[in-house]
């Protein structure tokens, strides 16, 4: 791919703290290489801001290799930007051309309040996991991997669901700010495996109850979550979540 440099206008949401009203600010960046990642472009912009004595833009990032789920920018109306199945850190500047204006917003959901600039508080996801997204096992030696036979198809589906990195892009794009693709992935991952069986019913009920407490909306199956998911988590996981929820709640004894 041919290398080129570009000059861009970046319109970024700036917000001092969670109580600040916030607003967009426009910045010019020059000579951005097409081989930079999107976050490297932000590093250049921040260097520029520091050099000019301004406050750099706060944004979440960690591994920068597309597997941690920390980066979270809503770029030109799409979480993680224009490329499919890509996190913001893996988005590269060759997705843009010279003279482009790029609008960058934080995830928007009441359950993900903005802490500063593009950084949102996604601890609601951690509390949903803590409510049921785990398996209880005794400590001790790990059992032999082949001692529990699991059908290949189920193992594959569970693995595909487990690929969720919990970035929150599904919530960000959903018109209802629903977390059900995330919860569906976590519930499916364990519901498909024998290890998830003992806590199968309490898990789904507790996770949905926690999500409702956090203020995520209801899923209306528009399919936007699946379309923007950097890990291509299938929306079928939401259907499985609904099935698990019905099985668990309808058979509840109390």
């Amino acid at each position, binding site marked *: 791919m041919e290398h080129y440099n570009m000059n861009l206008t970046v319109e970024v949401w700036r917000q001092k703290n969670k109580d600040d009203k916030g607003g967009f600010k426009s910045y010019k960046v020059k000579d951005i290489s097409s081989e930079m990642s999107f976050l490297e472009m932000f590093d250049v912009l921040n260097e520029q801001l520091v050099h000019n004595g301004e406050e750099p833009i706060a944004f979440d990032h960690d591994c920068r290799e597309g597997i941690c789920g920390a980066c979270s920018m809503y770029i030109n109306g799409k979480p993680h930007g224009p490329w499919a199945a890509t996190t913001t850190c893996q988005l590269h500047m060759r997705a843009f051309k010279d003279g482009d204006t790029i*609008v960058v917003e934080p995830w*928007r*959901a009441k359950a993900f309040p903005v802490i500063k600039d593009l950084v949102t508080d996604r601890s609601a996801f951690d509390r949903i996991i803590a409510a049921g997204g785990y398996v209880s096992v005794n400590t001790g030696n790990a059992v032999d991997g082949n001692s529990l036979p699991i059908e290949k198809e189920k193992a594959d589906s569970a693995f595909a669901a487990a690929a969720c990195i919990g970035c929150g892009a599904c919530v960000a794009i959903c018109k209802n700010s*629903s977390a059900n693709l995330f919860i569906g992935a976590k519930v499916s991952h364990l519901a498909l495996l024998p290890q998830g069986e003992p806590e199968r019913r309490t898990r789904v009920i507790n996770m949905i109850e926690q999500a409702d407490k956090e203020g995520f909306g209801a899923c*209306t*199956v528009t399919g936007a979550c699946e379309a923007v998911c950097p890990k291509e988590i299938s929306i079928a996981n939401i259907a499985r979540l*609904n*099935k698990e*929820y019905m099985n668990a*709640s309808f058979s509840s004894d109390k």
Partner: protein
Amino acid sequence: MTWKQVFTSTIGQKLVMGLTGLFLISFLVVHVGLNACIWADDGGKMFNQGAHFMGSMVVIRIMEIGLFIGFFIHIIQGYALTAYNNSRRGTAYRVNKGYGSKWYSRSMGLLGTLLLLFLIMHIWHFWVPSRITQDLPEASYNPEHHDLFSRMILVFQDPIVVVLYVLGCISLAYHLAHGFKAAFRTFGVHNSRYYSTIKAVGYAFSVIVPLAFAMMPVSMYLGWVK
């Protein structure tokens, strides 16, 4: 977990929408089937006999109460869910292109509101005169039967009414295009083989049924049915 907790959770509320929605879909099948009798080319006799049966049979009158309850729950729950879901975002996005979803999937509240307005007009046109005010002429073949057929012809002589009915049917088509398949997702259909069949049936249903309904006022206005 109490039943109240089950049906007031976000998934439970969607279950209520899906169950009442499918119930209303089953009503559409009966309604379109019976109304198709206007094309029997017998001056409306078969249609009037069908309408008389639906209006006089006690079991059906009891089911009609169930139908109204179904509509009521679907509408109230729909508005409550839409209002709640719309309040979940907080600050709106500056760039919002609706990426990754169809406009009608995102507009079920709006389409439902259009259908509610249509429903009020429709009840006023036919249900009120046949069930409440009894303000209908006698059928030629039997003075005990209402001539609902001639009322239909009369109502559909007004081009504005015909256009409103066709618009109502278009709203119904898009409402069904999302609602039919989404209901089954809510019921937990994750198997892709079954789901693709459901999706195909849903799209076919949402074209065929509203089209048949729309052709009724159109064929009466154009004089194809007399």
